[in-house]
């Protein structure tokens, strides 16, 4: 569990939302930085992209809204190209905390 802006956030909550979202890949990363900012990096599924910016923006907004409703913290959702996030062996590191609190 991580604490962001005073709220308890379980990465599994975010993972579940991402896995339920059509068009995103399996890999993701929660990056905490700055004072207390939560950035959720998620890969686009190569086969789900329909070529339109509006699809990407809709997906980004949908993920943002759902995470905010679930954990009470508004994340910054970043879409990445497929295969961008490092795939680690064994237990994948999903949270990177670089906050300067």
């Amino acid at each position, binding site marked *: 569990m991580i604490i962001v802006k005073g709220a308890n956030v379980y990465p599994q909550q975010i993972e579940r939302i991402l896995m339920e979202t059509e068009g995103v890949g399996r890999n993701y990363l929660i990056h905490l930085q700055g004072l207390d900012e939560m950035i959720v990096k998620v890969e*686009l*599924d*190569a086969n789900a*992209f*329909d*070529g*339109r*910016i509006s699809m*990407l*923006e809709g997906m*980004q907004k949908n993920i943002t809204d759902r995470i905010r409703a679930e954990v009470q913290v508004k994340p910054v959702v*970043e*879409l*990445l*190209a*497929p*295969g*961008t996030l490092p795939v680690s062996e064994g237990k994948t590191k999903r949270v990177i905390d670089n906050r300067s609190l």
Partner: protein
Amino acid sequence: MSTHLTDPINNKVKLLSVFAENKPGILAKATEALAEAHVNILWFKIVDGAGDKYGVIRFLVDNNQEGMAALKKSGFAVSTMPVLAVIADDNPGSLFRLTAALYEGNVDVRNGSGYYLNQGVVLIIETQEQEAATAILNKLGYKILTSAEVKALSNKCCCN
């Protein structure tokens, strides 16, 4: 049933639409993939996404299948988008006449661009109402290019 060789759907002009993170070297990486596959780029455009983190690069190329395979192999998320490639005159009012006709026919143009070719202009028009747009433009005598024609014109242009 013997018309499959001139299937109008397969012969429609499509752009390659590539998801691109907004970071240095992405455009070079995508164009390198096309270059190595000997795919010729006839036109391209970068469409910005919200927040400056990503965009979409649209390419009109001479060989969609090979272009798509090359980009996918380089790790890009790629899709194709049908567009109308219309020959228009290169003179004042040309774009006005065309867009006015589409407007009168209730055709919503989502995206538009163009390139100069052999003293004419090829307009690239993206619309949800392709059939309606095609009917309007055909009626007014505009030439709507097929993918084979786009390719043939580009080859002619390159040899000059």
